[in-house]
């Protein structure tokens, strides 16, 4: 390890150190606000080290980790999303968490999960892959069950634990098979041995498919999606947001690196598997979302469908696909943060507000909050001026470019179906105000102050991202193109 390695690795080291600091701060004195600020600043400082790390990138730090433009871009995404989630969490926890003890570890776990996410973005070796995967999964598991006196979060935590264990089991066995056949543990060496084989050994292919199933479980691709709606619904809303954005983005970053370095998209069985997963995810997600009466479940199914769209882009293969996938994931994170962010802020007033009826006529009582949700929904539906449109455009362009006509047609048909449920929620926002909400203050005595500065700032930040990316995406496109070329370069360069 020389200095350059430390510089390249500085975001991960930084966040690790700050996690320790946060832990010590909790041990020293419990104070919700202070710890929240500490966690927020940890992410902010880590974010600030990214440009510094970029000076040393691309660089392979040991055989385990690769820090390149691709990793740094996803790190930026993960850290920004985590900051938004921390900002939204504070008031939510204040409102939901009645016990006055033990709320602070929430932030520590959040930092650790993010640490796992950062490791995943840089992982270039089976070991670092598995470590990041587990760190993220275990931290999330305790976060989901953090409101330990409630029934739903506990149920969700148990479900997520089972999912996590299943995914890890598949993953470990798959990695073992890959190692058994190719005798290598780094993605790159595995990729090299694949290129040398005339035909890919069946056992190796089986191993790869097991690994991909593990990843699909984490991404919640149908038919491995069963846990998604229940966990989304049961988990505290900020954590739902975290699962939907950070956790999926990190796994996607890893999948992208795996796909490029090992070259799995050149194997027909994998292409068939992914095509199947894409179509099944889109159809299942969208059709089941039609039936939902709960906003969190609705968004859960919609996220399944969105990763179906991402897979369509991924299947296009080559640099265009990596570009489209990265763009879509960033956009998806922004709009999901927006939608779940509104649910979080709205739920911070007292009780979870996750039924569709809770949002009836919200626009007339809380125009800004409803406007934010409306914007996110339009973005999720892919209407212009929002980032979602450019994302969908990218996915369609990648698919058309690669000649995946059937997948593109499936994407379009599904987009139309998805409009129906997004519109349903959208219309509800503009519906007539229901009776209870019209009642004067008499009933809601001493309504807690509902908008706090962190919430306004973070939602405003997300809204501006959605709008700016929708109107002027060029700078981000350039950034992504650089990072993608970086990713491909590293894959090609190393012996």
């Amino acid at each position, binding site marked *: 390890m020389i200095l350059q390695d430390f510089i390249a690795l500085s975001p991960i080291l930084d966040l690790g150190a700050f996690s320790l600091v946060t832990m010590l701060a909790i041990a020293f004195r419990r104070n919700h606000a202070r710890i929240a600020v500490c966690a927020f600043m940890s992410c902010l400082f880590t974010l600030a080290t990214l440009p510094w790390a970029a000076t040393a990138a691309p660089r392979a730090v040991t055989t385990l980790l690769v820090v390149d433009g691709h990793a740094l871009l996803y790190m930026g995404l993960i850290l920004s999303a985590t900051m938004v989630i921390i900002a939204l969490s504070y008031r939510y926890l204040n409102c939901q968490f009645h016990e006055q003890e033990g709320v602070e570890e929430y932030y520590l776990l959040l930092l650790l999960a993010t640490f796992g996410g950062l490791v995943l973005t840089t992982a270039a070796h089976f070991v670092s892959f598995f470590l990041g995967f587990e760190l993220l999964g275990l931290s999330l598991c305790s976060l989901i069950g953090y409101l330990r006196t409630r029934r739903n979060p506990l149920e969700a935590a148990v479900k997520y634990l089972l999912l996590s264990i299943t995914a890890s089991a598949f993953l470990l066995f798959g990695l073992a098979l890959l190692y058994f056949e190719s005798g290598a543990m780094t993605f790159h060496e595995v990729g090299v041995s694949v290129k040398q084989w005339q035909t890919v050994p069946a056992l190796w292919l089986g191993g790869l498919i097991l690994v991909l199933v593990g990843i699909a479980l984490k991404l919640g691709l149908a038919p491995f999606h069963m846990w998604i709606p229940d966990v989304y619904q049961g988990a505290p809303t900020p954590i739902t947001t975290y699962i939907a954005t950070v956790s999926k983005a990190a796994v996607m970053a890893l999948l992208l690196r795996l796909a490029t370095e090992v070259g799995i998209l050149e194997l027909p069985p994998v292409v068939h598997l992914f095509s199947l997963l894409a179509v099944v995810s889109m159809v299942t997600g969208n059709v089941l979302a039609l039936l939902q009466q709960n906003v969190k479940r609705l968004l859960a199914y919609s996220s399944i469908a969105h990763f179906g769209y991402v897979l369509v882009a991924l299947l296009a293969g080559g640099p265009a696909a990596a570009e489209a996938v990265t763009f879509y994931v960033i956009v998806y994170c922004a709009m999901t943060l927006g939608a779940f962010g509104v649910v979080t802020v709205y739920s911070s007033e007292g009780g979870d507000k996750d039924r569709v009826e809770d949002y009836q006529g919200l626009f007339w009582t809380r125009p800004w909050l409803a406007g934010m949700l409306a914007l996110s929904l339009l973005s999720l539906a892919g209407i212009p001026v929002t980032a979602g449109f450019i994302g969908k455009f990218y996915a369609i362009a990648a698919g058309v470019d690669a000649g995946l006509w059937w997948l593109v047609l499936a994407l*379009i048909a599904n987009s*139309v179906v998805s409009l129906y449920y997004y519109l349903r929620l959208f219309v509800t926002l503009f519906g007539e105000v229901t009776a209870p909400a019209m009642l004067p203050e008499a009933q809601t005595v001493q309504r807690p102050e509902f908008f706090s500065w962190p919430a306004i700032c973070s939602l405003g930040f997300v809204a501006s991202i959605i709008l700016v990316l929708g109107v002027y*995406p060029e700078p981000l496109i350039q950034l992504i193109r650089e990072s993608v070329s970086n990713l491909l370069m590293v894959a090609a360069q190393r012996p």
Partner: protein
Amino acid sequence: MGLWLLILIPILAAPLAWMGQQWSRHAPRWIVLGALAIDFVLVLLLGGQHSTVQSSGHGAWLVESHTSWIPRWGISLHLGLDGLSVVLILLTVFVGIVATIASWTEIQSRVGLFHCNVLFALGGVIGVFLAIDLFLFFFFWELMLIPMYLLIVIWGHAARRHASFKFFLFTQAGSLVLLVGIVALALLHQQATGRPSFDYADLMGLTLTSEMARWLMLAFLIGFLVKLPAPPFHTWLPDTYAEAPTGATIILAGILAKTGAYGLLRFTLPLFPEALSEFAPIAMGLGVVGILYAAVLACAQTDIKRLVAYSSISHMGFILLGAFAGTELALQGVMMQMVAHGLSTGGLFLLAGALEERYQTRDMRQMGGLWSVTPRLATMALFFACASLGLPGLANFIGEFLVLFGSYATQPVMIILASLGMVMAAIYSLGMMQRTFFGRQQDTRTAPDLSNVAFGTLLFIAGLQIWLGLYPMAVLTTTKPVMEQLVQHALVSANPTHLPSEPLLSSHIVTSQGSTP
């Protein structure tokens, strides 16, 4: 810059109109009228400035504005104004003013937001008529959808939810197909030249294999036919028109339907000339089916708004018919029909809205004998019914006549069938008059007659109808260069060998009347 002002004035005035609600009840309405008036003057200035310049060849625009936007995809902020856009933007602004006046008394709740949406929608439509980068076009194409949707879903009548969903899903499905077509075209450009481009002029020069052209043409056609609408994509229309508030219906029927026709003229025809020559009989057939089918259904309606809605589909059939006839005469007819229909349905929906406001019903069986109660309303209704049925001397007649006349040479049987549509228009229009204003009075309540403002507006539209009916050259000379190019381009692409002989066939209206068989 002037072109951007055209789009930005309504869009920037929109938030102002929303805020204006706080100052006074009528402030938003005046803001809309003011913004549209400025736009109106601006179009006249921009279009009039260069009226002497004869533009020829594609890419020659009266005014053009070009800025790079997303270079990665070859997307630019490229606007262009030609005769076609001038006429349609003038129509847009005018119909917008009519819609605002029509909702003067009808919209009493959330006035600011209503007018904010009206302005956003109009801004989007003007953008559609100006954009000559296909991505930008699609951007505006979608932009106008959300405000329209909100107008229907917030201020609509009883079944608004259902109607608005249908409207949105149909048009959005069509749009997505269109998007795939656009993206595929841009990527084909990338394959041919190494860089993707969404620019109209670039894509015009692209040579496509005939199979690819056929599929892409179909994608473009579906996107535009849904908006037009033509059967079998028309089912969203009657529900939407009937359930939307009057102002929104006027915008929908008067302008949004025209965006579909505009798309056909601007993009589908020039981009895929060869594929079209094969497909033209089918498209014209759809047009004839639309004319007759909608006319028959219009005869059977009891709901006055649905009747006008079906008559609207029927009139749009003429546009489809003329657009694919491939002669300049028919294309000029299409242009005239677009303007005339915008004016006449605007008037009819305003009247239907006025009736609904007075009697709280759209059911014509509960009306009857209203002539004596509301003479002004009845007179104007008679006038617009006559305009709609194609009375000579009014603008609709010119449009339909030119379409029929211009396409007779290519499809005589279809044209004979289509002419039946004009007969049926007489049946349903006069039937509407009969059931509503003549006969025995069902509802004995007295109702106020049209207000002076509404009456004045209607008189003004009527004046325009007569003016364009007697002097259609006002529109036709403006759009003539564009239509000439369209026909020439189509002919050149279809049979590149004999250039000069064929296009002259219909190069001038007066001479072609003699030379068309």
